[in-house]
């Protein structure tokens, strides 16, 4: 006769409510683990998806995903000339916040090196890759933009031609892909008045030098758009991405490029490590610690619940002892109830989580390993939390049944 099941069936409503409570608590523990995993996944996802062997970034910086990095746009050609480099492409990455249909929208802009990169590697769930080098945009679903929708960024209007899934930046913002020239245009978009003021300032500075009075054409040149001025450097990229040719050593190629004084080279693993140890490290550790704390709290609450359930049964336990039930039967009853509470609570946590987690603003990733780990933790918690109740039950004298 399963005494644990009999007791539960007799107090079904109470046990059900208790289990739902434990389940919700475990769902939070599960969710914290999922958020933790989501942060790591989001941080490294872009690096993995882009798949570059080497990242050439501004000297002594950790790369554009971790901090601001500026390299000249002609660096892509210098890198391409290095022996062992199969392809080199420009990389532009920055985050903007705009208003779209009355709502604020944060977008991580990723520049694709047109025409070598049209975004075919992106995880498209609808639409297509880029077909022209301007005014087309591939957006992540989390940005809530629709296929064919038009959005104004800077002075231009872009059409959403493709939708991706789970292309999220380490900050949790959805990624939108345009060509590098469009990405730069969006990044360095300046209001018309600012342009006029800048040209005027240039002219004023030029007038202070004698050479402009001797050669007035120079003064006229200075008022042209900056893109038409040879002495002014062209727009800058965030990084250059390198694919190493088969049969060549990536470290050798990296060493060659790193010997230049103006850049630093990171491997793909370096980039991942820098991100995890840098920008997301504190969030990762905070959530990790919070998860541990929640697990301990769940254990304490389960122990108290089981202790209270045992206290309510003390008379029955004394009766069982009176009719000769061995301690193993009584301990088994409490342990089985603890395990039922834990297993059912875990099931409720999983079922609720499957429905609720997709509604969270940041990704909550439940991996098989994490779920298995939590299941083991719940089993251990169930056993440990039953010990308090068992300890109390074993101290009950059969005499108490007739007191």
């Amino acid at each position, binding site marked *: 006769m399963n*005494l644990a099941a009999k007791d539960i069936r007799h107090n079904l409503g109470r046990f059900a409510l208790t289990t739902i409570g434990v389940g919700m608590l475990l769902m939070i523990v599960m969710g914290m683990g999922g958020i933790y995993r989501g942060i790591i996944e989001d941080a490294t996802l872009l690096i993995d998806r882009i798949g570059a062997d080497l990242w050439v970034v501004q000297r002594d910086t950790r790369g554009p995903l971790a901090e601001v990095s500026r390299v000249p746009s002609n660096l892509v050609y210098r890198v391409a000339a290095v022996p062992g480099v199969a392809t080199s492409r420009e990389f532009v990455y920055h985050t903007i916040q705009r208003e779209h249909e009355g709502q604020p929208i944060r977008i991580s802009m990723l520049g694709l090196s047109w025409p070598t990169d049209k975004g075919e590697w992106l995880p498209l769930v609808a639409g297509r890759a880029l077909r022209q080098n301007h005014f087309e945009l591939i957006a992540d679903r989390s940005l809530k933009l629709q296929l064919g929708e038009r959005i104004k960024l800077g002075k231009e209007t872009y059409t959403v031609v493709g939708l991706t899934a789970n292309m999220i930046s380490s900050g949790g913002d959805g990624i939108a892909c345009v060509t590098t020239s469009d990405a730069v245009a969006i990044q360095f978009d300046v209001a018309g008045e600012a342009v006029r003021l800048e040209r005027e300032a240039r002219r004023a500075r030029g007038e202070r030098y004698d050479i402009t009075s001797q050669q007035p054409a120079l003064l006229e040149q200075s008022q042209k758009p900056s893109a038409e001025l040879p002495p002014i450097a062209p727009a800058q990229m965030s990084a250059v991405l390198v694919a190493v040719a088969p049969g060549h050593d990536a470290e050798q190629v990296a060493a060659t490029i790193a010997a230049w004084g103006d850049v630093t080279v990171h491997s793909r693993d370096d980039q991942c490590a820098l991100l995890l140890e840098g920008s997301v490290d504190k969030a990762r550790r905070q959530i990790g610690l919070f998860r541990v704390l929640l697990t301990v709290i769940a254990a304490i609450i389960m122990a108290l619940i089981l202790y209270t359930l045992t206290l309510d049964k003390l008379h029955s336990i004394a*009766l069982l002892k009176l009719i000769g039930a*061995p301690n193993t039967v009584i301990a088994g009853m409490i342990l089985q109830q603890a395990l039922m509470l834990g297993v059912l609570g875990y099931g409720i946590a999983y079922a609720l989580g499957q429905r609720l987690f997709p509604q969270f603003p940041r990704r909550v990733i439940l991996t098989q390993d994490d779920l298995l780990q939590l299941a083991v933790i719940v089993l251990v918690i169930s056993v440990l939390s039953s010990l308090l109740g068992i300890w109390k039950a074993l101290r009950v004298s059969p005499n108490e049944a*007739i007191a």
Partner: protein
Amino acid sequence: MNNDFAIETVKLTKVYGSGNTEVVAMREASMRVRRGEVVALLGPSGSGKSTFLTAVGLINPPTSGQVVIGGRLVLDGPHARTNLSKFRRQHMGFIFQKSNLIPFLNACENVQIALQLNGRTRSVARRRAMELLDYLGVADRARNYPSMLSGGQQQRVAVARALANQPSVILADEPTAALDSHRGRQVMELFAKVAHENGAGVIVVTHDQRALDVFDTIYEMEDGVIRPSQAAVPAE
């Protein structure tokens, strides 16, 4: 130790507290119950009857003295000479004033549990439990939980549980208090029948003077001391 006796107590003494707060609940209480004998224990409240019964029932060990069951020394003072829990399960049946049923088991399961704890299979235990409930007139309430039974019905289920394992010792404390006179007498006669048929020793603490003729021997207890009754005369 005489093997003819189902129960033998030798100078049982129970002292609660110590020093100024010391209370002697039972003083050198000795009793012998033969196999098949039904004994009544009479006495006013607070005389030590329940203390004696719980000592014999291996629930509340005495401070000194010995309890011998079926010729085997089980308690020597407060010291157990065997696994008391197992011994109770195999050899003893208890009935108390309050029915003391397990609230989350139905009537049948309350009887069944005593049998299953003693190693009976579920089907055998269930069949035996139903037979006992039928014999005691509560088979139709087998699926009811204790809270759905009247006091008398609860008590009959408790009696069925006590008899389930055909114990060699039955200890009952006011077992008929919640029963009408007819059922009360029926229970007492049942004890006598079990005692005579199975060779069990039965001690019944009772105030019910109407059924004293059922008992083979009557003892009285006062101020913790047991002596054979002078007032009541066993019927024969």
